[in-house]
């Protein structure tokens, strides 16, 4: 990002992602985009709208409806020296490309003794809350975070939406960027900090001394709202945006918990065997003697996400549950 653009301006998450893509296309001729309906249609979430006109068919490529094929093509292009950015509409469709992602992209560098790195970037939409029913409402970031060889990013803020792509393109490993569907319309300030977005560190989005709310993606904003409500009850919550789910920045998390001595993990994924379970385990391993209360998790109810609005809301973590989980760790309301 040039110095001239390092000026704060108000924008949407969607435009910020597009801005990141434009900058990448402008900066590096090896970069190209591939995916279903990303060209003429402008992307199913309108993220790539206008890019075909600006960069042409060679660099903005509509693909057939075959995730396995175009993710595989992306791996080949990356091996061949290009910098492909592959868009998969939503995380549920990525399951059709799982063999390419897990068996090929994540392994080749390691199986070739480091000779064939796969600098592939895959973007996909994730999450629930838009009444698109069980098959289109998954949060499988935790699944992907299980896989060594991949890097998993979950930008929540405008700066990260715009800036993490550059860090992903600079990485030798395949990077999957999960963009929460509910965030595309969110608005915020794009600042100079976007240029220094990395794939290493979690970020403290709100400092606090009493409890650490550990989260990522769209749940960040539920946590910030919960922290505001808790502050009215005299509880100062620290809100940590993980940003990167693999590798996990355990240091930031552990240091925060050591300060606050309480941890609540908020994750839209299902509770069992998820990213929240992993963070809870790390806290037990590394900060057990600093804890003043058992670690709490606020996750999705373990059902396929319902279609009906009231049921979908009931299935997902909500602000009131976060507040209640925190309150249960204190003496209040006994």
């Amino acid at each position, binding site marked *: 990002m040039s110095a001239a653009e390092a000026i704060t301006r108000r924008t949407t998450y969607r435009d910020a992602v597009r801005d990141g893509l434009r900058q990448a296309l402008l900066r590096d001729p090896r970069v190209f985009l591939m995916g279903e309906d990303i060209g003429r249609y402008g992307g199913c979430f309108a993220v790539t709208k206008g890019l075909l006109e600006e960069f042409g068919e060679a660099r903005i490529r509509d693909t057939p409806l075959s995730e396995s094929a175009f993710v595989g093509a992306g791996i080949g292009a990356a091996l061949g020296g290009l910098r492909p950015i592959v868009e998969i509409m939503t995380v549920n469709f990525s399951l059709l490309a799982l063999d390419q992602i897990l068996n090929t992209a994540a392994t080749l560098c390691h199986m070739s003794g480091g000779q064939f790195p796969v600098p592939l970037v895959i973007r996909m939409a994730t999450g629930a809350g838009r009444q698109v029913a069980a098959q289109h409402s998954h949060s499988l970031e935790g699944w992907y975070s299980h896989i060594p060889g991949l890097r998993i990013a979950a930008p929540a803020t405008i700066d990260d939406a715009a800036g993490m792509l550059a860090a992903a393109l600079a990485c030798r490993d395949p990077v999957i960027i999960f963009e929460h569907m509910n965030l595309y319309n969110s608005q915020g300030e794009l600042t100079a900090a976007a240029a220094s977005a990395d794939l290493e560190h979690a970020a403290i989005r709100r400092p606090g001394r009493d409890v650490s709310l550990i989260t990522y993606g769209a749940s960040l904003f539920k946590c910030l709202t919960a922290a505001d409500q808790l502050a009215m009850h005299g509880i100062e919550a620290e809100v940590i945006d993980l940003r990167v789910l693999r590798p996990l920045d355990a240091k930031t998390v552990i240091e925060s918990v050591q300060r606050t*001595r309480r941890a609540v993990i908020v994750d839209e994924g299902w509770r069992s065997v998820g990213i929240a379970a992993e963070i809870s385990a790390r806290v037990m391993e590394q900060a*057990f*003697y*600093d*804890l*003043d*209360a058992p670690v709490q998790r606020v996750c999705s109810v373990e059902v396929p996400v319902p279609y009906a609005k009231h049921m979908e809301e009931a299935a997902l973590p909500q602000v009131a549950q976060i507040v209640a989980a925190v309150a*249960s*760790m*204190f*003496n209040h309301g*006994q």
Partner: protein
Amino acid sequence: MANEFRMPSLGPDMEAGTLVAWKVHPGDAVKRGDVVALVETDKGVIDVEIFATGTIEKLLVEPGTHVPVGTVLAQLKNGEASSEVPAPPAPASSPETVGAPQVTVHAAVQPPAARHQRISPAARVRAHALGLNVDSLRGTGPGGVITLDDVSKAGRANAKRANSPSEDQVHDMRRIIAKAMTRSKHEIPHYYLSIECCFSRAQGWLDQHNAAVAIEERLLPSALVLKAVALAARAMPEFNGFYKDEQFQAAADVHAGMAIAMRGGRLVAPAILNADRKPLAVIMSELRDLTTRVRSGHMRAAELALSTITITSLAEEGVDLLVPVIYPPQVAIVGCGSIVERPWIVDGLVQPARVMTITLAADHRVTDGRAGARFLRHVHDSLQSPEKL
């Protein structure tokens, strides 16, 4: 059979004490001599033993409560279990199974409910760092769990009370000393005798003894003096006991109190029990233990309440002669000055000698100067034959 554990009297002037903590829970089996509670008196926090054997049935007083001496603190059931040792179960082996490993699969058993006080890891770490007994803390967290906040509060309260004696506490201790010493000078017609005691032989014997033993077994002069006084007290029981209700009651045993200064202007004189019958090595190790516990504030009830005669020393302060004040209701106290080099005449020749001036203050209502002189002579003579102590 029900039995009661009461707030003990931990000194002749104690009227009330504060229960600091329980060291037992209901259901615990206790036997005579077990430390069951910590009680705070003007003399500090004291480990209190129980004299009965049985099972704690109910704790009646909450930690932190200030109650008069004699208040029932706990009820216990007297199991008289000591004599009823349950018969060992008969071995279940039969000839067929001999040699074969026997695996018994139990039906699912209900594990006993956890009895320990629930405490957060952070609180436990803090309690340990502050030297707080977790069992003495009260939890205010969810479900009664002890939280970091509870420990921090207890730590602050404790710091006020015990770690650095507050002005109030020093004031209380001064008040107690003032009361006892005023009573002593008001009521007890003291008489004083002193004797210069050649300590050269004793010192030579100590040096020889100490050269042959490990550092932690080395003897100090105070152990010798204490034993010598204890032997004199046994030989002359009119110096060993209490003056109460206008008459002297000789004590059956000799419990020699040793005045020990505590931090913050406090002074106590806990006893070496049956000092006349203990070897020097035992007296020395008990003296060391007492000094450590007095300075950390952990004294046992019996040690404070039972002194029958007291020894006080300012040897380390470079004092030649100490004229002590009797600690009522006792009737005698022996003071020791420093051991100093003095010209000493032996067989008409002047030679350097190590000399300690020992002073007796005794109650004239009970004894007279002649008896006092014999007492001092007894102490003096004992110190000339240290190998017999």
